[in-house]
């Protein structure tokens, strides 16, 4: 059914995004990149994919400059697609940007809390999470004003409302604020793709639910693992878990009670994918999950495996026709590509060639 009318509004955008997907770096391209001796070589190798954007870089650019230029390309492409999107697709794309917006607002809140000049922070904000009224937030001099302007000016208001008051911004750790917002965002997004009349029951809802559920589970597991040994209480932790996903509700309940890595392992036992991850991690690295650094060169961390899984899901999204999810998937794939390039550049710059293969290539 969705195939009948999808292309009327969204055919062009889908075509463009599929074209973008084809320009993503492939495994042979990555193996060329890893052969590079200097950043300049790397830049040359990236020429076909990023030529225009890297042209303005000075010789031997820093890895951060490289990363920001490659991000620029993503931004400009995203903006082009966004400009051509209409109706529910436009709304969908806005939803994609909300995640970045949360990061930006969290940054501004941090700045305001510490009474910094938030105008300087605007440059540090992620361009994807930019919204027109963001500079307005910088006018706020204290947290209460900021809270009110966030409620009025930003699309994030629903995520603040109901779960955070302006006192919370003052008292809670910014990370908790950020994760609360993110939880609300994920739930809202999930709700959006499943209930909007254009998307409910279409491949979009199916694929996006899959992606978002994975994202929710990943966040839940990460929050649990990262909160061990911090002042975050179990009750507070429980509030940060999104209320959907493969782990919800039994898994998240068990996660909220987990005291150590073993507890997390038990909690995720019911989901085959995560169980496999944990088993692989405990086999690979003896020093526990999430161990990316240190001795084991080939041992993949949990984080790596999550990224790997995310990329696979994103890749699979392109096997479906008539869906908005490819845009989300494309953004994620592109972000991973930028991370990969940055990683390879770091390895080259720091002469740590033995770890250079630690990126994730899906195509």
């Amino acid at each position: 059914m969705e195939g009948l009318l999808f292309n009327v509004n969204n055919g062009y955008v889908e075509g463009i995004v599929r074209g973008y997907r084809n320009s993503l770096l492939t495994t042979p391209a990555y193996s060329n990149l890893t052969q590079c001796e200097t950043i300049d070589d790397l830049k040359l190798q990236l020429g076909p994919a990023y030529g225009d954007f890297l042209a303005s870089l000075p010789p031997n650019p820093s890895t951060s400059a490289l990363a920001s230029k490659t991000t620029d390309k993503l931004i400009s492409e995203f903006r082009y697609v966004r400009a051509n999107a209409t109706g529910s697709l436009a709304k969908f794309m806005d939803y994609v940007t909300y995640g970045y917006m949360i990061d930006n607002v969290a940054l501004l809140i941090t700045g305001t809390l510490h009474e910094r000049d938030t105008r300087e922070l605007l440059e540090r904000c992620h361009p994807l999470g930019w919204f027109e009224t963001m500079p307005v937030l910088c006018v706020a001099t204290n947290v209460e004003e900021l809270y009110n302007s966030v409620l009025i000016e930003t699309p994030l208001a629903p995520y603040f409302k109901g779960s955070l008051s302006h006192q919370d911004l003052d008292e809670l750790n910014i990370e908790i604020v950020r994760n609360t917002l993110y939880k609300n965002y994920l739930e809202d997004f999930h709700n959006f793709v499943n209930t909007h009349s254009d998307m409910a029951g279409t491949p979009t809802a199916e694929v996006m639910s899959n992606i978002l559920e994975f994202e929710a589970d990943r966040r839940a597991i990460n929050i649990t693992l990262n909160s061990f040994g911090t002042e975050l209480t179990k009750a507070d932790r429980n509030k940060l878990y999104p209320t959907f996903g493969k782990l919800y509700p039994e898994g998240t309940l068990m996660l909220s009670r987990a005291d150590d890595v073993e507890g997390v392992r038990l909690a995720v036992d019911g989901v085959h994918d995560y169980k496999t991850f944990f088993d692989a991690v405990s086999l690979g690295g003896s020093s526990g999950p999430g161990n990316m650094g240190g001795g084991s060169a080939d041992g993949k961390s949990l984080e790596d495996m999550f990224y790997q899984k995310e990329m696979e899901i994103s890749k699979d999204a392109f096997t479906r026709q008539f869906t908005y999810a490819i845009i989300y998937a494309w953004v994620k794939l592109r972000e991973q590509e930028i991370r990969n390039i940055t990683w390879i550049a770091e390895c080259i710059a720091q002469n740590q060639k033995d770890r250079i293969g630690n990126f994730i290539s899906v195509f």
Partner: protein
Amino acid sequence: MSGAADREAVFPTRQSLGIMKAKLKGAETGHSLLKRKNVSEVSYCQVADVFTIRTNIALEITRRIDEAKRKMGRVMQIAAFSLAEVSYAVGGDIGYQVQESAKSARFRIRTKQDNVSGVLLPAFESYLTEGNNDFGLTGLGKGGQQVQRCRETYARAVEALVELASLQTAFVILDEVIKVVNRRVNAIEHVIIPRTENTIKYINSELDELDREEFYRLKKVANKKQRDNAAADAEMKARREAMEKNESGASKQDSGPADILAAEDDDDVIF
């Protein structure tokens, strides 16, 4: 020697000669001690050892500085790389957030003084403040483990830096001390000992001069005395002879005592 310029301004007396000799002896003992030559005095042994110890410590420290610098190179590399891992895992810049959420120092150093054979060397000792976990929640959603590990790696890097700083400070101070000692050795060797020797020589020569003067004077006095004595003796002798003559004349003229004055008036003495 060049004379007055290179000696101490003392009066050339026996007392100051004694003082100078004592000084020279002291200087030589000190010099041999500082130079680590054979030391006879037990009480100074410690001092000699001090110098050896100091030099050895300085060598030891240079070696450790070398090690620490190499270690720092490695550790800093690992630390920089772990930061790369963080940016890979988090996928963004967390610098600002970390800066803002850090409230108090977790990694602190304590300074204490080590007494290394009389030289006070500052030693920096690093320690972690317990329970200070300001950005423990950074990267809660993703990358938290990498952030924590990165922090640990950097803590190790800072530890290496502190160690290096401690060693270098110690080295600089020891170097200074050793230089001072060397300067002192040179001063003793090239200034104090020659000058004292000169002074002694000067005093000796002055005293010799005085001795010679004294001797000459005495000789003169003796000569004079001899001459005077000879004259006195001759007079005495003449008088005695005259007396004997008179006595014999008187005994010829009359046995009774004659008027001496008259008799003398009569008889002139003929030499």
